[in-house]
């Protein structure tokens, strides 16, 4: 039995590695198969979304603190990079790293202020920050360029447009790999377990000794930093920044939608969500141009996800698969009589140290789900 489950697990791991290799190969070959620069640039946008959604998930998915204002870190990363390049002549990618570091430092006091409140209050606070930054960057035109925009020189001036897209496609992929790696490491760590405990029941986690505030803050800073890297990379790729798009609640909402759609408990959930939402957004913009139809579609999609797949696509599909192909995986409450007897026998036999000091058998008593208990 044990060796069986062991080998099954090994096969599962192998299958996953294989799927990962195939997925990676498919993604990396995209620039070669993309028919024209427009499709390639749409691919860049989608990978950018994947970076942002995965970054958002570092705090939203682990701790359950839903930030609608992650556009703030995106915008700060983008403008930080752009301004460092244009005003201080810092080399492009050095500027990107410095801007992300600045955002990391800024995220500490912002996190200290905003993570004090939970639930809806946290959502509102997160929105407030984006709106403030939007006004600041629009009004302070002498420094930021205001609504006229800020043109960021390209890091590789020699490249033609398709090559420029291709290089940035791979750069965004590298950034995505980094964000996924961070999520994966945290997911498997003690730190991650503590964060998930916060998501489940923050007070309880704290009562069990988890320094919840420090945990939340650390996750928040890491998330903001990756979001800033995504924003800064966008600035270098797109080359033109406007506060209304950079400090947008809409971008924050897209990150939430993508993560929720794919599944916040899964490494690749936000990536899948970014693929679906990113593709849909491009489609609607292409087909219906400047109408607001893409917003309507986004809203409908969000509604459908929350109603029918509250845990996202990945768990929904997994549940469906389990329902049809794994009928033996029954609820734990359905314990057969034979199993029950075996459990009791095992318990009566082997309970040396902590055995009941009480009267001998106490058969109705307890560890095994008695029928009355089991039906609750």
């Amino acid at each position: 039995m044990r060796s069986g489950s062991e080998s099954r697990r090994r096969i599962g791991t192998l299958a996953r590695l294989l799927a990962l290799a195939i997925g990676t190969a498919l993604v990396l070959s995209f620039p070669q198969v993309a028919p024209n620069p427009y499709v390639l640039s749409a691919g860049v946008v989608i990978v950018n979304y994947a970076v942002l959604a995965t970054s958002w998930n570092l705090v939203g998915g682990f701790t359950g603190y839903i930030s609608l204002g992650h556009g703030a870190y995106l915008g700060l990363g983008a403008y930080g990079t752009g301004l460092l390049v244009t005003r201080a002549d810092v080399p492009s990618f050095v500027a990107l790293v410095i801007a992300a570091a600045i955002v990391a430092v800024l995220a500490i006091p912002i996190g200290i202020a905003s993570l004090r409140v939970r639930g809806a209050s946290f959502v509102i606070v997160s929105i407030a920050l984006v709106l403030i930054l939007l006004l600041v960057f629009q009004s302070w035109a002498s420094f930021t360029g205001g609504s006229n925009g800020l043109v960021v020189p390209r890091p590789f001036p020699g490249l033609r447009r398709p090559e420029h897209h291709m290089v940035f496609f791979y750069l965004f992929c590298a950034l995505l790999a980094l964000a996924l790696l961070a999520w994966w490491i945290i997911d498997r760590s003690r730190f991650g377990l503590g964060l998930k405990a916060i998501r489940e029941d923050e007070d309880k986690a704290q009562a069990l000794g988890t320094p919840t505030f420090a945990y939340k803050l650390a996750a928040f800073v890491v998330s903001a930093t990756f979001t800033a890297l995504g924003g800064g990379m966008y600035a270098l790729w797109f080359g033109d920044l406007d506060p209304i798009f950079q400090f947008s609640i809409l971008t924050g909402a897209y990150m939430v939608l993508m993560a929720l759609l794919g599944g916040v408990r899964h490494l690749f959930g936000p990536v899948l969500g970014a693929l679906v939402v990113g593709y849909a957004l491009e489609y609607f913009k292409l087909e219906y141009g400047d109408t607001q139809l893409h917003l309507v579609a986004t809203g409908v999609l969000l509604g459908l996800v929350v109603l029918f797949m509250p845990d996202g696509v990945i768990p929904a599909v997994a549940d469906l698969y389990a329902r049809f192909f794994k009928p033996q995986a029954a609820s734990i409450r359905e314990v057969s009589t034979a199993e029950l007897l075996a459990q009791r026998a095992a318990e009566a036999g082997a309970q040396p140290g902590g055995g009941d000091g009480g009267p001998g058998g106490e058969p109705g008593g307890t560890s095994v789900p008695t029928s009355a208990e089991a039906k609750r």
Partner: protein
Amino acid sequence: MTAATTSSPPVTDGLRTVGLTKTFGGVTAVDAATVTFQHGKVNALIGPNGSGKTTFFNCVTGMIKPDSGRVTYRGRDITGHAPHRIAKAGIGRSFQLCRIFPRMTVLENVLVAARRTSLGALLGSPRGRAEVDRARGWLTRVGIEHLADVEARNLSYGQQKLLELAGVLMGDPETILLDEPAGGVNPALIERIGTLVRQLNAEGRTFLIVEHNMDMVMSLSDHVIVFDRGRPIAEGPPSVIRSDPRVLEAYLGV
């Protein structure tokens, strides 16, 4: 397995409160409560509904900041400390309506309470052999080890209560505060929890139990403190409390 705390005769350097007060708006939930719990014993806190027991409990464990007064533990002032610091000081607690992490497995629920050894260990796996063994040990002790890999939300309420207890024990607290451990569970399970408390107490752990089940209180505790209107009105061994006229009037409704 776990290092037992001092098993010397009753000491008073355990948990104490002096003039602890907490008001909500115009209501004084805890009113200048001065209580000394007997270290190394099973203490029970009883009183009618709304007498401030749970608020008192929450002030002691840091969930609520008291307006005034002090809480000391083993001579150290822990008033207003954050709950995780109080947990680290050696005080574990359960919640009134049983709180667990529903979307984690039973084993993970317990592992959350494992003490981290260093900052670097934070990024390590929580499933170190020693930690898992200890967690499984506590699950065995409360009798739900066979459910270790089940998601906690699938457990019955009684099993969840046992799980919560295992989680508290994983933190290796020398003082354990239980908020209504017998609430909403069947008699057989009450018996089991009572037995566990007795054993753990014999191993050197101090208990403070808020409970309405008088049978459990009278049979289990060494020392009973009666709360009424936010402050203790009587304390003593169960046999004395049972016949104290003030208690009968305030609580038993006679």
